[in-house]
């Protein structure tokens, strides 16, 4: 059996973190969690993941800042980053794409669609 896909989720809402943990572990993924972009970067400095799933609106460092930071580091150039957000504006989506996001998922998320997207970008 191969190693489970390891995912870092970044979201400031404890409720959303709990839902993501439940949905992703139920699909057999290995899940780590950070509360905002700053905490995510600190954790990623010493840990490896296959995929980052990040919210946009967060204190300290938002999702755009996190994506820009990761893309600025050679270690994370090719790391898949999915944005999971309540935002639906084309302008924000374009900003995420320009910053280097791999995909865009609107909340409320569907656990099956999310799991399918995770497999597609990490295979």
């Amino acid at each position, binding site marked *: 059996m191969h190693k489970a896909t390891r995912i870092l989720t970044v979201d400031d809402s404890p409720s959303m973190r*709990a839902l993501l943990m439940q949905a992703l572990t139920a699909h057999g993924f290995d899940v780590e969690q950070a509360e905002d972009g700053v905490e995510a970067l600190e954790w990623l400095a010493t840990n490896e993941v296959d995929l980052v799933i990040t919210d946009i*609106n967060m204190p300290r460092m938002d999702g755009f800042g996190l994506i820009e930071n990761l893309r600025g580091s050679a270690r994370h150039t090719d790391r898949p980053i999915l944005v999971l957000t309540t935002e639906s504006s084309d302008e924000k989506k374009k900003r995420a794409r320009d910053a280097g996001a*791999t*995909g865009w998922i*609107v*909340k*409320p998320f569907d656990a099956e*669609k999310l799991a399918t997207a995770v497999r597609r970008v990490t295979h």
Partner: protein
Amino acid sequence: MERRAPLRSSAEPTKITIMQGQARASGDTSLEYTTILGSCVATCLFDPVAKVGGMNHFLLAEPPSNRDPEHFDEHYGLFLMELLVNETLALGAKKSRLKARLYGGANIRDGLAPIGSANAAFARSFLLRESIELTQEDLEGRHARRVHFLPSRGLVRCRTLNDEPLPMQQPLRRPKSAGGDVELF
């Protein structure tokens, strides 16, 4: 601000009805949000520093005690709460400063699953988990309520509609547009 201040200022405010499934926020001093609640719950959030407030209105399907927790669409409830929080943040509010008030969640009659109570419980637990202070609630019971909220001042007036039948409100199903669609770039 527990006092029930008169909602009248120099000019009559522009009333905006918050419908089920909506979340709106504003700092506009001329606006008043209003809604009628049966089993539905409305959350009013207010940041006293930014002077920005917002309101949502929801009724999630089926209480979790009703055997099939899948029917209680917590994802959608969470989405509507997050939408409300984000609407206020976009106008300069800070999550740590937000004060919340909850209204509605009436139960229609005996023998039916207490869907109002289940929605009230969801709203309370959301605020608790998110560390948003609940400063006032007027929840459950058997009567409909009409809520008026001045978002720029955080003032609420909640009137119990004793003589009117509880409006029959259908639980909220997610709109098709809220299907968690994935777009890969």
